[in-house]
């Protein structure tokens, strides 16, 4: 290992890279997980590249653990993960590039990965490929080898491949490509360290990296040379004329635009003429790459006998069946909710009873001599408000654990496949089901998740619909109030209200698609990963990042809101009935009366759910105060409304405008204030309309 000698040289290289620092200006994201990571200045930089679903994130997590930073690529709505780790005494900055099938600039992810590799020049790139779909995975490698970045290959999922009867001779593949290949089972942390060792060896001596690069088909070779000659010196570093010519021939929009802007007009018109004659070359180039891959893997891979039934086939005969698959999806759905509440409910009770109870008594002792206003604010405002919300934590954690397992097993893509037909009614396709499904946990990741959709139209519609998916916070509000509101009918009411949300989601989707988008259809092309055993670490990290972002929200927004509500309900004079908040709430009574809600405290609770949906309960808790003997908060609230108004209240709570965090995320993801305002207006109209209709219907029926 020549590592110690190499570090000073590297530092010089780093300093001459003006763009290096750009990478680390990460924007804050709702997904911020671990602590902020500052890259070591004199460290090596390794980029992780790979197609989606090849276990690239697992490799990243294995190497960096919690020592990672999740943000956005500057100015982009694509997630950026960076981390620092040490290997054999060398500090390494690891950059996880977005998962891409190619480097063709067909998507934002592909552009980001490509630009990073070309302009930031990492010391070495690690390509994670899927041994179970080797040819397809090597397509990206074929494109990577056309760039000037040293490369090593991690042959991941070797175990899944072997389960499916595919055997790969790693050294034969390495010899054919003249690129180091390391066998990996990232989920079991096998081969990960060896992979980094191989990457460091290549980085230490980049001159020795002379891979077998794919060449273009013979019939296109003269055209390519012609283009290279025409480009001359117009292509500036870090772009190479060879690569630019190849991308021009592939019809790459981005490269075409750049070249058009940088060459003289007469040269461009000649280039353009050549390109017009070879318009279909891109298909041949892709075909040529696959032919090259075929030659590379021929000697190295033993395929399963034709017609062998694999585990994936057997599971898919049910999971993707139009009827059984749907039944399975509903079953998993039901099970997920049953588990969430049976496992999480006792934990929640323990949290709110023992922990919050303890905290309250502790605060009472500490604040015994303090002014009434301060002890009131802390005990009745902050602890009661934010504390109740923290009790939702187990519900969220269990939900995300289940979701993480479903995702890691490879099931979620099947859910999307089964739902494709229904999503078509809304002009969407199966992929939109994935972000919407996330919405049951929290609407914020649902809005963020819409990034997986290629088309803006589909992304906008999915983002518009996401807040109509009832999140765990709203479900918890429902679960808290429904038993006291409706006794034995609580379960029926709960299911009915969830169904109402989903029906309205479908109706809005169909209507918006018909009116605003004129029923366009989007292309549905989605990979179905092979099933595999879930990895505890991957799932654990998923739960951790999502739950921590909730804790941050509870710790800041909700705490603040609880405090503000308490203060406003005690000013002036300390009497809630004469407070500012009461006056504001009473001003809303004419609107509330149509829904049968005349108690200002209930109206204020509804409005406060804008800060966070869980705030509904927290605010009711603050405003109704400590329950009298024999009563609970929920029964106290029930007592101020007739059944029709109670149902209207719950319906409005379920359909109300998205919470502040979701609104901010919608604005950030759509980049449009108009769309954000339209989304809020639509939900306000729907929720109020539903509330009024329900109450008035009950009144007419005399219930």
């Amino acid at each position: 290992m020549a590592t110690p000698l190499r570090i000073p040289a590297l530092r010089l290289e780093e300093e001459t890279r003006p763009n290096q620092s750009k990478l680390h200006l990460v924007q804050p994201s709702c997904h911020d997980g671990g602590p902020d990571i500052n890259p070591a200045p004199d460290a090596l930089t390794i980029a992780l590249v790979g197609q989606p679903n090849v276990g690239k994130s697992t490799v990243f997590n294995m190497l960096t653990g919690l020592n990672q930073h999740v943000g956005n690529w500057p100015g982009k709505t694509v997630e950026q993960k960076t981390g620092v780790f040490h290997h054999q005494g060398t500090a390494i900055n690891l950059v996880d590039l977005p998962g891409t099938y190619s480097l063709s600039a067909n998507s934002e992810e592909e552009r980001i990965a490509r630009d990073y590799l070309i302009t930031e020049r990492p010391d070495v790139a690690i390509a994670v490929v899927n041994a179970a779909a080797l040819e397809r995975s090597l397509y990206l490698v074929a494109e990577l080898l056309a760039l000037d970045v040293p490369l090593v290959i991690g042959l991941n999922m070797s175990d899944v491949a072997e389960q499916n009867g595919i055997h790969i001779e790693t050294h034969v593949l390495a010899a054919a490509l003249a690129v180091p290949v390391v066998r990996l089972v990232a989920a079991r942390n096998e081969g990960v360290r060896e992979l980094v060792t191989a990457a460091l060896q290549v980085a230490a001596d980049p001159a020795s990296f002379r891979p077998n690069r794919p060449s273009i088909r013979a019939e296109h070779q003269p055209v390519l040379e012609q283009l290279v000659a025409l480009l001359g010196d117009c292509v500036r570093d870090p772009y190479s004329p060879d690569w630019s010519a190849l991308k021009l021939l592939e019809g790459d929009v981005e490269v075409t635009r750049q070249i058009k802007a940088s060459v003289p007009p007469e040269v461009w018109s000649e280039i353009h003429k050549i390109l017009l004659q070879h318009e279909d070359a891109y298909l041949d180039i892709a075909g040529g790459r696959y032919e090259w891959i075929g030659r590379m893997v021929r000697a190295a891979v033993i395929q399963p006998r034709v017609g062998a039934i694999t585990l994936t086939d057997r599971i898919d005969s049910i999971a993707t069946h139009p009827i059984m698959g749907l039944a399975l999806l509903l079953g998993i759905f039901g099970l997920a909710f049953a588990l969430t509440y049976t496992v999480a409910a006792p934990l929640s009770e323990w949290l709110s009873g023992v922990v919050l109870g303890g905290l309250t008594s502790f605060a009472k002792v500490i604040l015994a001599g303090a002014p009434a206003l301060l002890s009131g604010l802390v005990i009745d405002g902050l602890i009661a408000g934010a504390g109740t919300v923290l009790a939702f934590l187990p519900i969220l954690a269990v939900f995300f654990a289940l979701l993480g397992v479903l995702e890691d097993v490879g099931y979620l893509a099947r859910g999307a496949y089964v739902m494709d037909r229904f999503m078509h009614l809304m002009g969407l396709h199966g992929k939109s089901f994935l972000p919407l499904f996330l919405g049951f946990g929290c609407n914020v990741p649902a809005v963020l998740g819409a990034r997986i959709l290629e088309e803006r139209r589909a992304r906008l519609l999915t983002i518009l619909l996401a807040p109509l998916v009832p999140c765990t916070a709203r479900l918890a509000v429902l679960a808290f109030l429904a038993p006291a509101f409706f006794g034995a009918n609580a379960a029926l009411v709960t299911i009915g209200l969830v169904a109402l949300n989903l029906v309205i989601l479908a109706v809005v989707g169909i209507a918006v698609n018909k009116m605003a988008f004129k029923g366009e259809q989007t292309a549905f092309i989605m990979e179905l990963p092979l099933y595999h055993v879930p990895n505890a670490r991957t799932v654990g990290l998923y739960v951790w990042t999502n739950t921590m972002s909730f804790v941050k929200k509870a710790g800041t927004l909700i705490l603040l809101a609880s405090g503000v509500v308490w203060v406003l309900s005690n000013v002036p004079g300390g009497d809630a009935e004469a407070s500012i908040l009461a006056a504001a709430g009473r001003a809303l009574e004419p609107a509330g009366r149509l829904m049968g809600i005349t108690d200002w405290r209930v109206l204020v609770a509804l409005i406060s759910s804008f800060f966070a949906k869980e705030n509904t309960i927290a605010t009711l808790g603050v405003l109704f105060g400590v329950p009298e003997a024999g009563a609970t908060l929920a029964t106290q609230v029930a007592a101020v409304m007739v059944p029709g108004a109670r149902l209207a209240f719950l319906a409005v709570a379920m359909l109300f405008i998205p919470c502040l965090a979701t609104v901010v995320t919608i604005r950030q993801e759509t980049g449009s204030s108009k769309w954000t305002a339209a989304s809020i207006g639509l939900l306000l109209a729907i929720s109020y309309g539903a509330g009024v209709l329900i109450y008035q219907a009950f009144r007419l029926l005399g219930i």
Partner: protein
Amino acid sequence: MIHSTSGSHPIKVIADLPPGASGMVHSLTGGREFCSRMANLGFTTGADVKVRQNYGRGPVVVAVRGALVALGRAEATRLLVRPNEA
């Protein structure tokens, strides 16, 4: 579009093939972006494909280059293949 008719098997769109049928990719029809994405995924002329699932409506699952790819009905009518002998 003109289809060469060499061989006894006519060109078909993959959406019309039953589950279990296999063939070779003949061509793609549709927009540039669609064709490029499909080609990158391995649907290039001459690639072996096998229909893994097709219920006559809704999406289909196609195996190509060792991976499973779900295609919407519309997309599956734009992928032309030359079926192999049954």
